[in-house]
């Protein structure tokens, strides 16, 4: 398993850099930089700027996010912050407040 998983019940305060997929189910405060896919799962609380290959949000994110490929805000997901990505989808039932820059 070449993944990093921040499981439920775990809190990380600091900076994560990863050259692989990252799944967040717990709490992250700080910064997350990942080359591949990042998934913020239901129940996760992220207070961090996120820079990823691609980003899927179905938990709660407060911070600016950018993705080389795409950002998907899924149903139940909540994002407060600016999005910078060439492709962005926002599903029915998601919440979002922030600026969008798709001109990357």
């Amino acid at each position: 398993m070449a993944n990093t998983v921040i499981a439920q019940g775990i809190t990380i305060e600091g900076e994560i850099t990863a050259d692989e997929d990252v799944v967040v189910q717990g709490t992250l405060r700080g910064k997350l930089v990942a080359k591949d896919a990042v998934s913020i799962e239901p129940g996760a609380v992220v207070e961090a700027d996120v820079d990823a290959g691609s980003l899927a949000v179905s938990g709660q994110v407060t911070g600016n996010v950018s993705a080389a490929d795409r950002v998907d805000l899924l149903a139940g997901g909540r994002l407060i912050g600016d999005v910078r990505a060439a492709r962005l989808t926002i599903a029915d039932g998601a919440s979002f407040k922030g600026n969008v820059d798709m001109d990357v």
Partner: protein
Amino acid sequence: MASGVNGTFDGGDEAVVGQSTRIRGRISGEGDLRVEGAIEGGVALQGAVLVAEGGSIEADVEATSLVVEGTVDGDVTLSEALAIRASGRVSGVIRAAGVSIEEGASVSGRVEMDFDMPEELNG
């Protein structure tokens, strides 16, 4: 909860710091943790921690139990046991209810196991 540390990780409930992941900061909370990458900062968990071969922690570790196949550079405080495998390397002060060191492991520092001293040794 501690079962995962013996090698049967199925990606269930434990947190994993993957091979090419580096965390600079503090990890806390409740749950097991498998470290294949690098952590600099601090670990304070209620749960079992495994530092896999190639993995490293450069920080103090507080946890329920710890298995070291990689490298730990920092003080270790556990409510249960520490196992240092043949490939493991630990430098720091070790405080634990039990400590086991396999042949081939490298340890530098002090070991303070928690047990009752015989009467005649107590001043």
